[in-house]
């Protein structure tokens, strides 16, 4: 019948069309390479907030150790029109932080240990995404990028209403781009920090430059080179316990990053909010503990800003007010 012939002919034509086009489409597809997806950079051990820095280094030689456990849901979802893919759907990690302080200076080391990074594979636009695959069985000893930082308080005093500081960090690559836990290049961050305590209100903030040599700009959902870092935090600081040996600080932290190549453009800006609370010891000249809990979500959900996030932290730190190495006394009011 004519209709049947037409159906067969159209079917053959369609098959030919697919056969002709398929190789060219396959050739046009590119493999997404991966990058360091996380934009939640835990602050230096002893710095107080989850991301911001209280800049309260003081006294003689002191130190801090910190463990931050975190889980992020969908920190990387890639979309192109109606196509959506959770390339990184689940990310759990443990960050080990160590810091040495001396008067107004701090030297820190942060080492991130991915516990699990999983997601979905698929094609979005002309890019093929392979899901990351980090799990304790296959990767029993993985550490990803680590950060070495130097922070200094330039103005202000611990407990004062305004403190200004500067921070420099070097990010040393370790891991695999395909697991979305590294850019596989050296990176650095230079930040201006501010913080203060006004009565029962504590605040902190940052503005900085994240120097990233890697630019995957044509890949959907990928960051575009160097970024501006920004963030602010504020909260109530309430004394707890007899003699106010503890303090409870509750308040939000908002932080994000935007690519200079596409300044604050919707697709190249990640913004995240975290409601955090911390209980911290306030005594001096002895080891103190700080317990932290934060729950948040991506406000502008792009690379690294997740659908939601939960973080737990525990720190041991001290606020030394002791003789210095040279034997003179430290005056914490004029450190």
């Amino acid at each position, binding site marked *: 019948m004519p209709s049947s012939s037409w159906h067969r002919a159209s079917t053959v034509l369609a098959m030919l069309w697919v056969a002709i086009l398929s190789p060219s489409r396959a050739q046009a597809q590119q493999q997404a390479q991966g990058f360091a997806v996380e934009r939640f950079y835990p602050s230096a051990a002893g710095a107080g907030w989850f991301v911001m820095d209280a800049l309260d280094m003081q006294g003689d030689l002191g130190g801090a150790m910190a463990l931050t456990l975190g889980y992020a849901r969908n920190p990387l979802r890639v979309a192109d029109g109606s196509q959506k893919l959770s390339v990184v759907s689940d990310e759990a990690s443990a960050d080990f932080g160590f810091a040495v302080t001396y008067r107004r200076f701090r030297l820190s080391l942060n080492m991130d240990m991915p516990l699990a990074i999983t997601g979905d594979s698929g094609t979005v636009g002309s890019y093929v995404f392979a899901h990351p695959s980090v799990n304790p069985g296959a990767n029993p000893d*993985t550490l990803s990028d680590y950060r070495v930082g130097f922070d200094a308080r330039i103005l202000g005093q611990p407990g004062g209403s305004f403190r200004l500081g500067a921070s420099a960090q070097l990010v040393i690559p370790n891991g695999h781009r395909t697991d979305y836990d590294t850019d596989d290049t050296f990176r650095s961050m230079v930040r201006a920090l501010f913080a203060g305590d006004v009565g029962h209100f504590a605040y902190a903030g940052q503005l900085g430059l994240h120097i990233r040599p890697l630019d995957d700009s044509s890949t959907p959902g990928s960051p575009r080179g160097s970024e501006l870092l920004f963030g602010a935090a504020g909260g109530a600081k309430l004394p707890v316990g007899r003699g106010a040996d503890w303090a409870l600080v509750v308040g939000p932290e908002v932080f994000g990053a935007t690519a200079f190549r596409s300044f604050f453009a919707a697709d190249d800006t990640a913004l995240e909010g975290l409601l955090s609370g911390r209980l911290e010891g306030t005594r001096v000249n002895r080891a103190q503990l700080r317990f932290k809990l934060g729950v948040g979500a991506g406000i502008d959900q792009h690379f690294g800003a997740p659908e939601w996030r939960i973080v737990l932290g525990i720190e041991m730190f001290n606020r030394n007010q002791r003789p210095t190495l040279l034997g003179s006394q430290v005056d914490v009011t004029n450190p």
Partner: protein
Amino acid sequence: MRAKRSIPFSTRVVLAGLAAWILVAPARANAQAGPPSGHEDAAFDFMNLLSHNGLHDIDHETWNLYGQLTYISSWKRPFGAPYTNTNVNANVSAGTYSLLPTAERSFTGTFSLFFGLRLWRGGEAYFVPELIAERPLSGLHGIGGAIQNFELQKTGSATPQLYRARLFLRQTVGLGGEHVVKTSDPLQLGTVVDSRRLVLTAGNFTILDVFDRNSVTGDPRQTFLNMAFMTHAAYDFTSDARGYSWGGTAELYWDEWALRYGRITPPQNPNQLATDFRLWEHYGDQMELEHDHSLFGRPGAVRLLGYRNHVVTGRFDEAIAAFEANPAENAAACPGIDYGSKNSSAPDLCWVRRPNVKLGIGINLEQYLAKDVGVFLRAMYSDGKTEVDAYNPADRSLSLGAVAKGSLWQRPFDVAGVGFGMSWISAIHAKYLAMGGVDGFIGDGYLRQAAEGVVDGFYSVNLLKAVWLTGDYQFLWNPGFNADRGPVHMFGARIHAEF
């Protein structure tokens, strides 16, 4: 906490160190990629610096931090071998399975930080990140139990890799007895414990942190370069490809006696990094009994160690039987994890891997003959029925030697030693290799079975109290348990720093 100075600090630390030496020297850590040995008061390190300035109570620590840096270079002279790499198909790039007879150079570089933190009474946490870069000889193939550099790992590369070497909790429960001073060291917070105590460890560590320690061979980063002297060559302790495991140990110390038990994770497949966490199904069990003694006024110790692995491995007899029954089940046609052999006329363990048991028992002796001069002996017998799961292919091993510190010649931080090591394989293991089979590191294609032996001599010169420069010579015969190959002369140099 600030150190109290009721008596001079240096005197106190010397006394504490002497007490610790007498009481706990046999229990010093000794590990693959292990921690540096105990830091003496005169040595330079970060914790001593803080303590000397009254900024840290090194005897009752809440935290400590140590580090080490080690670079080892090895050079192998050309040697005679009638055949090499007969398992490699010339048309296929499949690497090497023999120790190459040409001159070669190998190196390792490691950097480690040792963080310790006291959590609560008797509770301690340790975290050790480590960086390694390496290039082995012949792709780490062709040598059985006497690999020339103990730092070499199965997954290493010349590009530095950072990984978490250790992350574990330790809980000490005092049960009375005398007071034992534990000096501040890597993986040890300075404290005082009971001579009768229960020590529980859980997490990620190397089993050599707990088992088969020997204070004479001590920290391999300060003594012998050859792996034959780090532990029993035939001790196939389950671990990932770097030598680390997850699991738990329990140690009961009762004055001069110690009884230890540990269960740790194996790799998912032999010699792989991926770890099998199903400890109820696949595991390595070990038990050790230790007695510390004094002979003619000098300390010594005797340790009996037994292990039982229940892991996924292949039996040599089953691999041979499978091949003889069906030659299609050969090394070149492996369906799963294998060692990459392209020898279609050889059997392969890949066809017969299933949960198997491996057993071994060994003895470890140490005895000081004079101040700072000690001798050691280790001997182990493993059943030799299954392939190497995690360490090396030796089925039986013997090592002995002597180590002396330079106090005899007025250089107290120098160290010198000479050691002799032998290892053997079982008859069925030899038959499998002679048929062209590959077992992890070895498989020349043919085999004239012999014991593999090594003599290792070294001298470490101490510089600046924290840096050691070592010269090392090794003479290796019958590499890969093959009398047709070798002998091999190897020279090594090491620079090691602690801080």
